[in-house]
């Protein structure tokens, strides 16, 4: 165990890697804090920087961006009532009233310290749980792995329960797009329409950059929003929590950290749901629930602990099963695949440095980000004063160059463009680009395992699907997929009567 840990820190603390982690923390916090730049966009835009790194440093770097983006989002939530990332929404409930009462410094301090604690607790949880999960999964054959990947798809239903049908359609489009190119077993080209460029399949990175970054710029091009508030031209200082105050909130912090980690591990439920649920739990269990929404420090603590804890949790299925639980981890998986890393249960068995590297990166990032965020909060009004007419084009430029750098061809740039416009249409029409991306990432894993399993079973599909673990997972998956439909039906029946 100790050897495992030192190997991880050895990778991260190597000067060139360490500089990249610092860079990731700064960029992550700024991107997370800028409204309209979510954590998924931050991770997508940073992927091109990993092309030349080693695979372990790549994932450690992207993890650092992800963690600090969630933290950065809290700054805007407190000062401007705009959640920097969706996971920070409940922070606005109590953080903004605190800021208006002149306690912005305290609110920021709580947010930062709690974020760091949540992140570190979940990093330890990840370190302990991932090997267990992956050794359980190692006993799986392809039939079970297919079921696990398919289970990852049931995420689709939980991503947006308001419009299950459209979310499912989006996911299926993603799965279908993943079948373009050579088939994974026989190498037969499919849906290539005779183009050699399509034989390798649709590259995932440009699609993600387009949908998560450029779509957002198009959105703001059509509907620009203005940031207003008393803190726009003010210097803001941060008052960190003292140890005594932290201990006073120990139950809040501990509960939120555990909740956040568990929710993060569940597929589909990420920082956003973790933040909301843990805020709700805090209000429910409080002896004085009436204080919430009016500037209760516990509200900020609960949300910020939980949404950061969810980042560690979401790394568990990614590292131990190779299955992403949300947008940001889907991008990380494809960044690893790009480097030729075989993601899946074998990964941390054969190369435990991936686990320890991510762990080390999370510990270092969560400590670094407190220091960096205090500095950034000071000059934050300056950053926000940067006009969108500069930020928007620069985001597109980064996306274009990042897509180009993938294989040094402009075909990927055009693909990125198409994905961006499709992403915009998806938002407008209520479809889910997150589901499409998840389908695209999981498609190959699903298909190749299913077909391998069927081959082993001499072509008997039914015997493959009825294996105990496979069947249980598939049935759970079916329930998860059908449940929202049933709920909708129930609701509309109720509304009628």
């Amino acid at each position, binding site marked *: 165990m100790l050897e495992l840990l030192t190997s991880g820190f050895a990778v991260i603390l190597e000067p060139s890697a360490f500089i990249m982690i610092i860079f990731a923390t700064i960029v992550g916090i700024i991107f997370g804090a800028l409204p309209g730049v979510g954590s998924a966009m931050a991770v997508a835009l940073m992927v091109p920087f990993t092309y030349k790194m080693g695979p372990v440093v790549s994932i450690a770097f992207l993890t650092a961006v992800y963690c600090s983006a969630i933290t950065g989002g809290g700054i805007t939530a407190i000062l401007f009532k705009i959640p920097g990332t969706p996971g920070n929404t409940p922070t606005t409930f109590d953080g903004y009233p605190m800021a208006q009462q002149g306690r912005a410094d305290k609110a920021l301090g709580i947010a930062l310290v709690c974020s760091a604690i949540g992140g570190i607790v979940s990093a330890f949880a990840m370190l302990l749980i991932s090997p267990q999960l992956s050794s359980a999964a190692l006993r799986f054959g392809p039939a079970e792995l297919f079921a696990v990947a398919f289970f990852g798809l049931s995420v689709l239903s939980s991503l947006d329960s308001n419009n299950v049908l459209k979310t499912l359609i989006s996911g299926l489009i993603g799965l279908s797009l993943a079948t373009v190119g050579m088939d994974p*077993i026989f190498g037969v080209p499919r849906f290539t329409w005779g183009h050699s460029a399509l034989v390798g399949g649709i590259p995932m990175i440009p699609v993600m950059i387009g949908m998560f970054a450029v779509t957002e710029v198009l959105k703001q091009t059509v509907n620009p929003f203005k940031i207003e508030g008393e803190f726009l031209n003010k210097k803001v200082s941060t008052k960190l929590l003292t140890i005594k105050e932290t201990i006073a909130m120990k139950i809040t912090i501990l509960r939120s950290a555990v909740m956040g980690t568990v929710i993060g591990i569940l597929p589909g439920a990420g920082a956003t749901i973790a933040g909301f649920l843990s805020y709700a739990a805090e209000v429910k269990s409080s002896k004085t629930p009436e204080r919430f929404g009016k500037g209760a420090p516990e509200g900020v603590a609960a949300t910020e602990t939980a949404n950061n804890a969810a980042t560690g949790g979401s790394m568990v299925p990614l590292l131990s099963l190779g299955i992403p639980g949300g947008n940001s981890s889907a991008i990380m998986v494809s960044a690893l695949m790009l480097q030729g890393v075989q993601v899946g249960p074998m990964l941390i068995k054969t190369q435990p440095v991936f686990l320890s590297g991510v762990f080390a990166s999370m510990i270092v990032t969560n400590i670094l980000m407190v220091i960096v965020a205090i500095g950034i909060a000071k000059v934050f009004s300056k950053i926000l004063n940067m006009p969108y007419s500069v930020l928007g084009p620069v985001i597109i*430029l980064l996306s274009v160059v990042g897509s180009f750098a993938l294989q040094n061809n*402009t075909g990927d740039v055009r693909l990125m463009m198409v994905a961006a416009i499709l992403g915009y249409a998806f938002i407008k029409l209520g479809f889910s680009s997150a589901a499409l991306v998840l389908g695209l990432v999981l498609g190959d894993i699903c298909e190749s395992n299913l077909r391998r399993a069927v081959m082993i079973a001499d072509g008997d599909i039914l015997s493959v699907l009825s294996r105990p673990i496979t069947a249980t997972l598939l049935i759970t998956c079916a329930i998860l997929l059908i449940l929202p439909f049933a709920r909708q039906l129930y609701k509309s029946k109720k509304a009628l009567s």
Partner: protein
Amino acid sequence: MGSGLWPQFLLGILIVLIALNIFNSIRKYRKEENKRDFSISFHSLFTNKLVIGSIIIGVYSLILDYFGYLLSTILFIFLYMTLLSEKRLVFKIVTSLVATLVIYIIFARVLQVPLPRGIGILRDFALLLETL
């Protein structure tokens, strides 16, 4: 299990779900009191910022191979800033030059990604810049 079965399975479900979705949409549309207007005016195509923005990015991705990274990026940033209603001319020129150069240094020099050079005299210029 052959190569065709999985895509057939996926597309099969997809067809069913899309049919369901169309059915849903029609039902919803019938219920609506004020029927929505789906016609698109010819004029709005040229004033719609989404359309113009998409065209600018599209043209940018198409001319990259010919104009090279430097020239097409400067043009792109200038135009997109104009679209985002930036009025200050000098600011636009300076920003497009600086942003283009900064990204060039980061990617072409630090990360050593060979960016598109363009053709003709632009290629010669890009090559000259790379020797600096």
